[in-house]
């Protein structure tokens, strides 16, 4: 396995070549991938919002945004600008500190989670050893923010929405963690890079969907619930709770919730791609192409090509799941709160447990196929 492009190494090398001490070069390098990822995540939100509006329109035989830019691609930017310029209202009887902190606490962990999303062998901000665990931990910070927002708004609907959000996130974190655990067990690592590398040997046949179909379904359902997407959007159920914990929010604070939900959706889609659909892998390993055409895997242009294909594949797979989430939104009716908790605790949790045990048993019986 070759290491692919090492951007960090080459940038630091160039900088030291310019006479900057290695330590300073590293400091200069460090914020660059973070800022890039922040920009990527923001653009991903705009794309997701546009897709949501366009696909929703197509499903309902409408046209959707059409006049802001070609095919309305600038509509989400216009929405964002509008939210920025709107008045920032804090209700008189709300707790101003918690009210402000709530949306920030909802958005931050989602953006931080992008730390562990790999787009290639070295195209990741930080290859943390406990990457997946870090993501699960970070995603449980979010309900605190939601609860904060709901509680501090001093509004019954907000409070109910916040409580529902907390209950939902906590219930679905467990089956999700179980599904992830089965994957982790098969790849013997919590690192996202290792998880993808484990799926890379046989092209499309090596992806974990084939070995973890149940785990994939559990993960996808739980991810939809964590993102509060439509079959599970009880916290903001507009027919019952006005807008749930967002009721009292306006301007950019509301915008933060909005951004947070779409970043979270994109993140979940990316993680489905990484955990179950081979991350940046092309359906046929590109190393095979290199072998067929007699190109060395260390040729610079081949590495750049591989990197580009890797990023494209990750995004393609992720956006397929974003598309699926949007389509599901207009297909599946919303569940009741008791049905939601029933599904989480009485169905997904036991099925997840059985899946985990089965994976463990298969791992002992067929160590070659299940990462012994």
């Amino acid at each position, binding site marked *: 396995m070759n290491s692919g492009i090492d951007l960090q190494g080459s940038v630091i090398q160039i900088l030291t070549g310019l006479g900057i001490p290695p330590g300073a070069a590293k400091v200069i390098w460090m914020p660059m991938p973070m800022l890039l990822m922040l920009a990527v995540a923001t653009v991903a939100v705009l794309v997701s919002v546009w897709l949501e509006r366009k696909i929703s329109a197509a499903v309902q035989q409408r046209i959707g945004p059409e006049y802001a830019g070609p095919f309305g691609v600038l509509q989400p930017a216009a929405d964002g600008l509008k939210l920025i310029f709107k008045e920032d209202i804090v209700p008189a009887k709300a707790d101003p500190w918690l009210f402000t902190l709530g949306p920030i606490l909802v958005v931050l962990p989602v953006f931080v989670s992008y730390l562990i999303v790999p787009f290639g062998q070295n195209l990741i901000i930080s290859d943390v050893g406990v990457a997946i665990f870090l993501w699960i931990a970070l995603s449980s910070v979010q309900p605190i923010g939601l609860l904060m927002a709901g509680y501090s708004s001093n509004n019954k609907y907000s409070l109910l929405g916040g409580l529902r959000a907390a209950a939902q996130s906590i219930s679905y974190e467990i089956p999700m963690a179980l599904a992830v655990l089965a994957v982790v067990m098969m790849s013997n690592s919590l690192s996202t890079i290792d998880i993808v590398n484990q799926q890379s040997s046989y092209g499309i046949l090596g992806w974990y969907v084939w070995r973890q179909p149940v785990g994939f379904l559990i993960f996808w359902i739980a991810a939809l619930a964590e993102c509060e997407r439509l079959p599970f959007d009880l916290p903001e159920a507009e027919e019952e709770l006005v807008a749930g914990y967002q009721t009292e929010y306006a301007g950019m604070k509301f915008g933060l919730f909005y951004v947070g939900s779409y970043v979270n959706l994109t993140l979940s889609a990316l993680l489905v791609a990484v955990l179950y659909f081979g991350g940046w892998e092309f359906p046929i390993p590109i190393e095979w192409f290199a072998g067929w055409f007699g190109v060395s895997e260390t040729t610079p242009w081949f590495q750049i090509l591989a990197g580009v294909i890797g990023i494209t594949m990750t995004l393609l797979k992720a956006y397929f799941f974003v598309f699926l989430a949007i389509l599901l939104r207009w297909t*599946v009716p919303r569940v009741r709160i008791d049905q939601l908790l029933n599904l989480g605790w009485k169905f997904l949790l036991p099925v997840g447990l059985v899946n985990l045990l089965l994976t463990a048993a298969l791992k002992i019986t067929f160590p070659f196929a299940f990462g012994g």
Partner: protein
Amino acid sequence: MLKFLKQVSDYTKETVQAAKYIGQGLSVTFDHMRRRPVTVQYPYEKLIPSERYRGRIHFEFDKCISCEVCVRVCPINLPVVDWEFDKETKKKKLKHYSIDFGVCIFCANCVEYCPTNCLSATEEYELAAYDRHELNYDSVAMGRLPYKVTDDPMVTPMRELAYLPKGVIDPHDLPADARRAGKRPEEIAEQ
């Protein structure tokens, strides 16, 4: 034990069935994505009002005999007929006529009962104004020829649902000579 196994198998069956139904639903929504939007993009595309459309009332000053039948049949006595008796000709002479379209309900009773046909319903419906008093149309405003969707070069006219061929629900991309469903009025008259 057997009962437990039966419960498990029933539960599995229900789960599979639920998954099947969700799959069916997804195929429906996915199928809708390839259909053309039925949206009529209003300022650029407009539906052609039907021939019985009751829009803004048209008024012909010279035909009016100031009989005030329109006022009597109007649910709220809306038309204002200002006339004075001309002693020489021994006839009523109309000075002003007006209807406030901010109050009118467009029932076209006045049109129905007008003995001289000086009132008629047009297909004009774009009456928006910045001030409600602008909606009080006098005889000059009511005497204007109505705006026609089919005459406007900026507008693509669209046929309404009842004027589309059988089985068609989308007015876009329709050949101009496509016949509406059922018989045309003149064919019914012939029978």
